[in-house]
């Protein structure tokens, strides 16, 4: 009997071996090595091959947080997070609640609202860029004639507004950020609607029947029944929204290309992840590692705060 048991245990490790070997190389070692490189001052992979040695210390972190470019990246990332997560959550909640209270066309509308999920964020970013672009004035030089202002500006002018230079040369930071917020919210809606609608559909109808018998008003039903019972799902989409938001990168590449900003101000919209990749591609692994650990720290703290808040507010 004992022999069978031990043979059994030995077998489990065989089943696990491919996963474990790959995880050791591509997950466990990177964790150790990234922490190591972060604490070796000015570590560079290229110089390390050349035989250079590096002093142990927190110099990388000190440099990174003083670095003007890093602060700009941090500002962009935090701004985008703080704006897009609440906006997309509230909008998704509204859409989900509305979808849940209709019968006719419910399924087709549900399908439409999920469609942006299965898209390539670079590809559709290019569509958004085309929509916001000022057609005909690609370089903003004086001898170029501005033929028209993209479809978005046409719609704005149709409703009596003024055209805006959204993403081209000479555009303002505010205009750039507006485009990014619109695109990121558009991109974030499907997942949130899916989760919130799933939550709504699992709420027991008896609560609503009871409220109706008591003559409770619609708004009261929403704030006293729907939101509390949906709070675990709301907490979930907010937490995953923040985690994803702090890793924002490809949506900006989609719209602005790899220069991460309008043609005359490259890097203006760069994010934390973009900063890490820039440091990596210039062989500054020490700086990249320090920035990655800072990003991890921020995500961890924000997630813990979110969970703390939801512990008080969420009704399970």
């Amino acid at each position, binding site marked *: 009997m004992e022999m069978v048991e031990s043979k059994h245990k030995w*077998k*489990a490790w065989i089943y696990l071996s491919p996963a474990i070997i790959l995880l050791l190389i591509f997950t466990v070692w990177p964790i150790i090595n*990234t922490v190591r490189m972060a604490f070796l001052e000015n570590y560079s992979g290229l110089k390390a091959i050349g035989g250079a040695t590096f002093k142990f210390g927190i110099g990388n972190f000190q440099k990174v947080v003083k670095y003007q470019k890093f602060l700009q990246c941090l500002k962009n990332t935090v701004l985008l997070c703080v704006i897009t997560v609440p906006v997309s959550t509230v909008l998704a909640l509204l859409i989900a609640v509305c*979808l849940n209270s209709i019968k006719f066309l419910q399924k087709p509308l549900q399908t439409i609202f999920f469609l942006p999920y299965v898209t390539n964020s670079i590809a559709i970013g290019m569509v958004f860029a085309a*929509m916001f672009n000022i057609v005909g004035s690609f370089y903003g030089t004086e001898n170029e004639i501005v033929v028209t202002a993209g479809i978005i500006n046409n719609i704005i002018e149709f409703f009596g507004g003024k055209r805006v230079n959204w993403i081209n040369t000479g555009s303002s930071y505010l205009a750039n950020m507006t485009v990014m917020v619109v695109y990121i919210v558009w991109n974030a809606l499907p*997942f949130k609607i899916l989760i919130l609608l799933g939550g709504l559909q699992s709420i027991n109808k008896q609560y609503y029947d009871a409220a109706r018998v008591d003559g409770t008003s619609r708004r009261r039903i929403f704030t006293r029944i729907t939101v509390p019972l949906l709070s675990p799902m709301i907490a979930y989409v907010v937490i995953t929204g923040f985690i994803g938001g702090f890793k924002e990168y490809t949506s900006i590449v989609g719209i602005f290309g790899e220069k991460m900003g309008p043609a005359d101000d490259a890097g203006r919209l760069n994010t934390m992840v973009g900063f890490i990749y820039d440091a990596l591609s210039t062989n500054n692994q020490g700086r990249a*590692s320090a920035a990655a650990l800072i990003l991890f720290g921020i995500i961890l703290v924000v997630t813990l705060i979110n969970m703390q808040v939801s512990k008080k507010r969420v009704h399970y």
Partner: protein
Amino acid sequence: MSENIMHEKDIQKTSLRQKIVFALVQVFLYVFLLLMAVIVLFPFYWMIISSLKSLSEYRESVPTFFPRKVMFSNYAQAFTSANLGRLFMNTLYVGVVSTILSLVITILSAFAFARLEFKGKNALFAALLATMMIPGELFTITNYSTVTKLGWINTYTVLIVPFLVSVFYIYLLRQNFMQIPDELYLAAKVDGTSDLKYLCKVMIPLSLPTLISITILKMMGAWNSYIWPRLVANDEAHRMITNGLRNAFTETTGDVNYPVQMAAVALVSFPLFLVFVFLRKYIMKGVSRSGIKG
């Protein structure tokens, strides 16, 4: 209660009022939802009609909402100018190979965690789950030097191997495996069925929906991957679809031909739409449990 003493007339009155309120609310709901649906769909519509316009029509000051002359030739031009054929093949190859290998690894690991007993099982599983919290960029920095040392730069291997193990997929499949009753396993043991045979004949068929979800998410991941391929395999021979698309239209120094660009974007998006139309159920199921895009 007040209902008992209420006059019949009053009841009729309130019910009529309720009906009007209900109707108004329904109208409002449909107006709001349809408006939002239009906003959600508009970029797709704009992509398709722009891809069918001629360059001169695209640049008209008042845009047309349907192309006057439908230019399918934009698609042919996009296909050749962005070298989409090669990009499609590269992506398909990487997607299929990595999906198959990833499924094998995931099934074996999930089986060990769900059915087999060994020392430190729970601790190991908890440690795996903990790694899910770490942002991928933290791994990328070291993995980049690892694959460079291994001489994997600009190969298919570098696009496939580092991402074969997904802790999330192992977790997903383990949960599914654990729902299969123990009695089935014990009965199979009594009959002398081997673990591997039991896995293939019972567990895999019973968890097919989860396996399909994993397959779709993994394929979509290959289709949408951008950062890692750009870093390690951005040569002509191994370039993936998303990189190729972004490169093809930023490397050009001249005028941007938007209709052709939109045609290329549409060509990259169509396979995803097809997957969406036919396999929506599985995607939604996988996605609602993940929170990860691709």
